[in-house]
């Protein structure tokens, strides 16, 4: 593979993996947050929103300590799989999930809160189980929130820098994502390479955001069918 393309591919892989994990965790968590009357809800919401306000270096530092060989998460992971979490691609996925969590949870939670509850009730009274109701009614009804969550979760992960640098370092082919590679090229005063990679990031981010602002009927139908 072209050396210039490797960070790009790695960034896309990282963002895709992170998004899949975040959807698996985020859909039930966002549903719970939208429906619960638990007194713990504000605490969970505040913790979820922390990555929005903390400097990435602070988050990265705690993640480094937490996921590192001395941290309990790092130790547990190493005991289970025989590999460290820090300075590996897997570590980057874990860190990115925490960093991008609010960008996935908040649009989903908002969409679930705006959902017409009677649709859910109609599905249940028609004999559909909860999983079927969620898949065939809730998700299609929340499709705009789902799309926003996917786009923001993916794009935010592609664009992350501080957390990646702290947790993953700069290992070509393993943890050197696009933003880190750009930084390295700038440090080496290779502005041509930095420029072409930056343009890749701009184009990728633009392509990610475009569907959010395209309200074509075709896309809506497609999304409805995918969820059904």
């Amino acid at each position, binding site marked *: 593979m072209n050396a210039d393309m490797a960070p790009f591919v790695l960034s896309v892989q990282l963002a895709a993996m992170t998004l899949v994990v975040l959807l698996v965790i985020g859909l039930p968590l966002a549903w719970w947050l939208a429906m619960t009357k638990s007194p713990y809800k504000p605490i969970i919401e505040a913790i979820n929103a922390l990555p929005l306000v903390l400097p990435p270096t602070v988050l990265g530092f705690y993640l480094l300590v937490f996921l590192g060989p001395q941290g309990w998460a790092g130790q547990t992971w190493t005991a289970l799989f025989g590999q460290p979490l820090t300075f590996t691609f897997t570590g980057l996925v874990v860190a990115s999930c925490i960093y991008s969590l609010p960008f996935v949870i908040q649009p989903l939670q908002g969409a679930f809160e705006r959902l017409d509850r009677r649709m859910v009730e109609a599905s249940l009274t028609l004999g*559909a189980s909860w999983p079927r109701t969620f898949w065939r009614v809730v998700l299609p009804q929340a499709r705009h929130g789902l799309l926003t969550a996917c786009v923001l979760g993916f794009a935010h992960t592609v664009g992350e820098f501080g957390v990646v640098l702290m947790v993953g370092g700069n290992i070509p082919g393993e943890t050197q994502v696009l933003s880190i590679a750009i930084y390295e090229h700038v440090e080496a005063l290779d502005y041509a390479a930095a420029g072409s990679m930056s343009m890749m990031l701009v184009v990728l981010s633009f392509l990610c955001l475009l569907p959010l602002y395209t309200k074509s009927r075709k896309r809506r139908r497609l999304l409805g069918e995918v969820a*059904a």
Partner: protein
Amino acid sequence: MKGVCVQATLQQGAFKLDVQAGFAAGGVTAILGGSGAGKSTLLRLIAGLEKAKRGQVAVNGELWLDTAQKLFVPPQRRSVGFMFQDYALFDHMSVAANIAYGLKGPRKDREHAVERWLARMQLEQLGTRSPETLSGGQRQRVALARALATDPSVLLMDEPFSAIDGHLKSTLLDDLSAVVRDQQRTVLMVTHNVSETRAIADNIGVMAGGRLVRLGRADEVFDDPRAYEAALMIGWQNLLPVVWASGNRLGGAWGALDLDRPASLDAAWIGIRPERIRIEAEPGAGLPSTVKAVREFGPIREIECVLGNGARLIVHKAWDAPVPAPGTRVGVVLPAEHVRLLVEGSSAFLADQMVAPCSTQKEALA
């Protein structure tokens, strides 16, 4: 065992639902009541969308809720069809997919069932359309087909005609009536509209303050509402408060009446239908009053009479019957056999409701 039995209480903040009643199987029971009376909550309780604090719900002898046994059958395992006020159609699916949603079994059977329902509801050309693109009447027919396609034990309808007006409503009422009778359905329909009730209901339940204050055959309820709230709800205007009762006689500031049965202060009001009242030219015959106005309503003439204390009575006469001119002093006669005694139902429990499905339920449980 057939029918719907509800004996339950439910608390929602300051609102309390307390219903003890059996709804007969087959035919339409209209649940009338003002806003906040608990009509929709009752339907939601039967469907399992609300949980009762205490009590039982049983349909056709099958227990769906029994708090004593900690039994709660979730809505998806109850055989109900629920038609929501503005239908809650799935706009991300086609009309056909909406109707097919609750169907089970082989694909071919489901497709045939959908085709049958599309034809039955005159929606043949609309199967592939999105519900968003349909008119109000068409949406209502889709919702009805979707709710009935699963062949539910009971069909619950929450204000099904509130979004529809005029001529279309009467067509839809006829359609609904035909579908329901065709299939011997048990239907509970919440409404606040008396004319809808007259058009379709076999039985009427009236709710007030979270309680069912009257339940009976439609003609019986229209003839004798028994509860003051029920009389108001079905549009009775001739209501006079009872202040004293002695033997067969009762009265108030408006005058006094002799009944053909013992009077009692349990009934705080008397009521009478406007077509039952007689007007005599001689003010001494009956309650002395003055004709205030005469209005024409198609085949009916409405005569408004004012009694000595200012209370109003409305009298209906045929359009060709002689009527006194406004300002005339007349005697208003309330024939004893047509005078109804009305208790304030929300504070007095009416024991003789239609409890048949519940009593058999109790025997089955015992």
